């Protein structure tokens, strides 16, 4: 049984089919990187997995007791408002889900744990809009962790970050995957890092599609063309 199963799923955006007949099983505790050209439907796939868009044909199943409300999501940075008056604490706790509309003691505890895990306790009272890009990403990651204990979907988590912060981000994600047993699905343009960290690679392009381990990917024509020099990492 897989955590998420896509069976012959087709996703359309504004009447145009972007993803056609996708078969994908995301297993528990795996690290899947989604790579491919712009416009090949990577973000559409993430939205489909999140249930934000429904497949026009085929289906998406959640298994192993996964609830839609228990998926952690880190959106693309451009989708988050940068001039919004909110403290880090407010942003992180907005990820907590529960029956009560109020912030309960257990939600506070979860939020605090995730804030400590990501090392942002010193800035938790600061305003989100005054933070650096890397700090903002950590806050948003902490928010995503409040929503989930099992699955993290990320849309280009390192886009626009400097190399040092990028490496820190990858290490945090790797730690969450290894130590917390989180299943990670990440869209990335950083093919080198994808090959380095992921258990499996999904390469999406218009028409052709590859799904397999990094080693298998390196040996394909598609992988060699796309990864280029990075294939020696």
């Amino acid at each position, binding site marked *: 049984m897989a955590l998420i199963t896509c069976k012959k799923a087709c996703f359309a955006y504004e009447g145009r089919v972007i993803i056609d007949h996708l078969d994908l099983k995301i297993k528990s505790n795996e690290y899947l990187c989604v790579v491919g050209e712009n416009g090949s439907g990577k973000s559409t796939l993430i939205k489909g997995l999140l249930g934000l868009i429904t497949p026009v044909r085929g289906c998406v199943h959640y298994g192993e007791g996964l609830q839609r409300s228990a998926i952690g999501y880190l959106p693309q940075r451009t989708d988050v408002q940068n001039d919004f008056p909110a403290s880090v604490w407010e942003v992180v706790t*907005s990820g907590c889900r529960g029956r009560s509309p109020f912030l309960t003691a257990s939600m506070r505890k979860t939020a605090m744990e995730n804030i400590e895990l990501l090392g942002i306790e010193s800035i938790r009272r600061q305003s989100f809009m005054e933070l650096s890009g890397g700090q903002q990403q950590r806050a948003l990651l902490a928010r995503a962790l409040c929503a989930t204990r099992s699955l993290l979907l990320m849309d280009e988590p390192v886009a626009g970050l400097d190399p040092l912060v990028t490496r820190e981000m990858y290490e945090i994600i790797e730690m969450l995957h290894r130590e917390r047993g989180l299943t990670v699905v990440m869209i990335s343009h950083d093919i080198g890092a994808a090959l380095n960290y992921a258990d499996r690679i999904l390469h999406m392009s218009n028409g052709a599609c590859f799904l397999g381990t990094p080693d298998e990917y390196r040996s394909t024509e598609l992988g060699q063309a796309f990864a280029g020099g990075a294939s020696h990492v």
Partner: protein
Amino acid sequence: MFDMLQTMFSYHFMVRAFVVGILVSLCAALLGVSLVLKRYSMIGDGLSHVGFGSLAVATAMGLSPMLITIPVVVLAAFLLLRLSSRGKLKGDAAIAMISTGSLATGVIVLSLSSGMTSDVNNYLFGSVLAMSVSDVWLSVVLAVVVLILFIIFYRPIFAVTFDETFARATGSHAEAYNMLLAFLTAVTIVLGMRVMGSMLISSLIIFPALTAMRVCRSFRSVTICSAVVSVVCFFAGLCCSYLFSTPAGASVVVANIIAFLIFSLVALLKKRA
């Protein structure tokens, strides 16, 4: 000063205007923070025009103005929300169309039924004499309901305002909260329209939130500051209107402009320091 307040509050219509006005400015300020941040400010403005149209029609037909206007404006709120989120027409253009359309209808109905008298002026720019005792009771009850709903749903409203996609992705009923926000806004606008005037009521939604955002940096502090600024400005505006015999709604707006300028200055000084 004390004498002035005492004389002012000896007029029942002033007490009524204060009670309704303060409750409405509180509700408007709280909702305004979310509306401004969600880029929905124009919805508030559009709704007040729709309110004017339906108020005119209700009065011409001899029906209870509040009971007719509230459902009409609530429906318009849902419609405008839908238009701005997914309409084929451009959202802002659609809002402008509906506002001017309602305004035109209202003016025609008013001129046909009673002639273009000072009535129109009262509708457009508000009057402290507008509220009857039953209007006041209805307003108090509805304003309290708006406040309670806002407090209960404060956290989800924040989540949906900050990042609607995330809220939706993690299973929150974003659509329902947007509708709630539109509903509460519609009710608040109708309640405040009589005193503030339909041309000026949307200032109560927009000004306090923007003023608070000059200085405050977290959502909670912006919300609280906006509420305080709004109530203080309404009180000051209405007092000035009584003292200098200026129109009530316009005086409240001027008080809000002054508050905005003061807060902008404070923000500037804070940045320099």
